[in-house]
């Protein structure tokens, strides 16, 4: 079930109405848990068992971590949680990748390796809820969080449907306290939530889904197109990718908000990032900060020697790439971004902090955008030869094809930047807030109807579902 589908609208309307009609906090949470599991089952009910395993194991591990005082015992429970979560992720997401890669390596060495892959379907959202549950046990282990006593609360934290399948990655410390207090209807800002939902819908259904067929056309056969098309496709893919994921995040935050829960911000105007470091503070923020807090800093962060610091950075970025998918293209994507961040760190070290933006000004944002667009060519799973062809065309301006990709949607990009700029500067916010409720609601209803009319005809699954 996608957030842009009519059946989601029906599902959400029912969930919303019953949720607010129930009086107690307990019944409401039970209702939301049932709805969340129903939402997940609409995709594939069999994989609900994985969520349940993860929930039971981490709830138990959390409880035992709270009771256990001996460091050895605490480590054992944390290890149990890590093995279960990362084991499930490893089996369902990475098993075939590692087997095939191992077989490839043996083959390269001239050794025979009987590679037996499994026919595995990637459970939707596994990367997201695995990171969420891990944050719970790790935070308890570190003493940053007290274990929760209510299994219902913990199950809802893991399975809460707005963020279940594609984030934002919500940490226990952010969400669990919200479950302890009863949500109050009067405190919900429906106008803001619905505005955000409509914005998310426009990004996903009207922009991303309309760009998808054009992008697909290019990447199906990059050799058939000229250099200009490679740039157009790169830009389109970045815009498609951004609108897809941030649109989903907007709708997730808005849906949760209408139910009285607050989810963290996941995107903060990434087009205005003036360098690659800033980009990762504006793009998929919950993942960036998760990796920072649970991987980069625990491995030493920027403490120690320069080499040690660079090693930690590269580990974080390569694993960030690998988190996105089981493929060498994702690893390479992470590696390229890691290198880019290292270059930026070195630049700052020699020329001073923010020298890049001082030298280039707004050009930094343009260069960052071009770099991200180009690196997404590697990100897209497309096969080695087509990827190399597209990269050659994009970075070396060398293409043999003479096909021209439709540039009819190019206006989307400057429009998007303009809209972002207006939103970034909050120029319209005072006017919007000053509108009387009835008029704002009328405009929102009309805007949503208009968005439905300009949505792409065919539903496109969210790109981030595959992660």
């Amino acid at each position: 079930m996608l957030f842009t589908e009519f059946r989601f609208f029906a599902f959400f309307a029912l969930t919303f109405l019953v949720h607010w009609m129930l009086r107690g906090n307990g019944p409401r949470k039970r209702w939301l848990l049932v709805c969340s599991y129903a939402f997940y089952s609409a995709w594939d009910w069999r994989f609900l068992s994985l969520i349940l395993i993860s929930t039971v194991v981490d709830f138990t591990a959390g409880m035992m971590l709270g009771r256990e005082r001996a460091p050895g015992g605490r480590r054992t429970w944390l290890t149990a949680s890590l093995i279960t979560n990362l084991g499930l992720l490893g089996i369902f997401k990475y098993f075939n990748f590692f087997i095939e890669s191992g077989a490839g390596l043996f083959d390269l060495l001239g050794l025979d390796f009987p590679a037996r892959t499994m026919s595995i379907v990637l459970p939707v959202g596994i990367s997201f809820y695995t990171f969420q549950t891990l944050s719970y046990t790790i935070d308890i282990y570190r003493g940053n969080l007290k274990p929760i006593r209510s299994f219902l609360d913990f199950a809802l934290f893991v399975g809460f449907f707005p963020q279940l399948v594609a984030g934002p990655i919500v940490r226990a410390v952010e969400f669990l306290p919200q479950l302890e207090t009863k949500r109050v209807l009067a405190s919900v800002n429906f106008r803001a939530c619905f505005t955000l939902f409509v914005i998310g819908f426009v990004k996903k259904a009207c922009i991303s889904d309309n760009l998808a067929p054009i992008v697909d056309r290019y990447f199906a056969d990059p050799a058939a197109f000229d250099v200009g098309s490679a740039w157009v496709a790169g830009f389109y893919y970045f815009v498609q990718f951004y609108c897809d994921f941030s649109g989903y995040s907007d709708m997730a935050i808005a849906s949760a908000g209408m139910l009285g829960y607050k989810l963290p911000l996941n995107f903060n105007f990434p087009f205005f990032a003036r360098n690659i470091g800033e980009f990762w503070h504006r793009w998929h923020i919950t993942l960036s900060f998760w990796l920072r807090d649970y991987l980069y800093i625990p491995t030493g962060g920027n403490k120690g020697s320069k080499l040690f610091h660079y090693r930690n950075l590269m580990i974080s970025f390569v694993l960030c790439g690998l988190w996105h998918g089981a493929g060498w293209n994702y690893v390479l994507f992470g590696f390229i971004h890691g290198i880019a961040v290292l270059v930026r760190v070195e630049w700052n070290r020699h020329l001073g902090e923010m020298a890049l933006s001082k030298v280039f000004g707004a050009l930094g944002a343009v260069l960052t955008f071009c770099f991200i667009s180009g690196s997404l060519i590697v990100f897209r799973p497309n096969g080695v030869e087509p990827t190399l062809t597209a990269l050659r065309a994009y970075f070396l301006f060398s293409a043999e094809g003479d096909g021209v990709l439709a540039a009819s949607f190019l206006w989307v990009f400057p429009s998007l930047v303009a809209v972002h700029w207006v939103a970034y500067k909050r120029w319209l916010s005072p006017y919007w807030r000053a509108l009387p409720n009835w008029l704002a609601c009328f405009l929102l209803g009309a805007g949503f109807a208009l968005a439905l009319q300009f949505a792409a005809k065919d539903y496109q699954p969210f790109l981030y579902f595959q992660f």
Partner: protein
Amino acid sequence: MNVLTAAVSTLCGALGFAVVAGFGLWATPWPEDFAVTLKMEHLAEHGDRYDALIVGSSNIYRSYDPAVIDAELAERGVPLRTFNLGGASMFSFETDYVLRRALALEKVRPEYVLIEPGDWDAEPKTPESLSNMLSNRSVFWHDPRQTWNVLRSIAKGDTSPWHKQYLARHHLHAFCYKVTSYGQGRRIWGSFTDASEDQPVTPEHVASGRGYQALEEMTGPVMQARRRLLTNDLPGYKRKILEMAEANAAPLPADANCRRELERQMAFIRSAGAEPVYVVPPAGIQAHHALRLGEEGAIPLIAFNDPNLYPTFYAPQARFDPNHLNRAATALFSKDFAAELARFLTR
């Protein structure tokens, strides 16, 4: 926020939605790549030129030549001006919708509606048509009234409850697309900026042929492939015709659903001031419901789908493909049909 403010805000939101959705419903053009679209435009302008509409699938579209029919009718003392409103692959519910929209046009006041009875099956015919359930062509006829008709038909059908919900879900989905004009924005915009869409026929074709167009006029690999369906498997075609002749000899009982839908359709045609006549062309369809109801006198029926009675039209040399007549056979058939119709109307 108190209850009153919430209610007013919700109502205003719903009103805003309804205004834009209503505009979309009004402004969405009929499907592209659908011959009936231009025919409807022609009728809107020149509907008062015709006394009879012939409606149905491609079996109607490709087999009834109004020029020949009108000439023969005039010769037999029944001067009627007919218009072929047939469209490729129009199933019963779609035909019904097209007919309702045509009869609602100000200038269209026919004396007779000649209509292919169909089987009123809510089931998509092929996996392709299921995946095409959200195509413009499928969505356009799912207005509230017609969706209600199809849902009622599903509910009263004799399939399993699970299958019923499956079918109902697909039709409801198409209905949601229809009432919100989902994904139609660019077409609506195009209709105001005169961006023309590809159509399978031209307005001149519609006017000169009065809705009829021979398959020979269509070009392209698809048409050639259709032709080869006949030429490459003549024994298969003959076997199918023999089976149909045997089945026609003892038609199965008409199901209650089909009877109910035909009665409903006849009532609305009559309420528009026209008289319905059901016509079964010499195609490869059995139409046993219609044959049985015709025998019972429940519907006025002229049937030509008996290979024993009309062997000329079923001979391979009369066919363009297994289902459709070629141009020469259409001329012959239209003449015979007009003769039969004249007899039927003067009875």
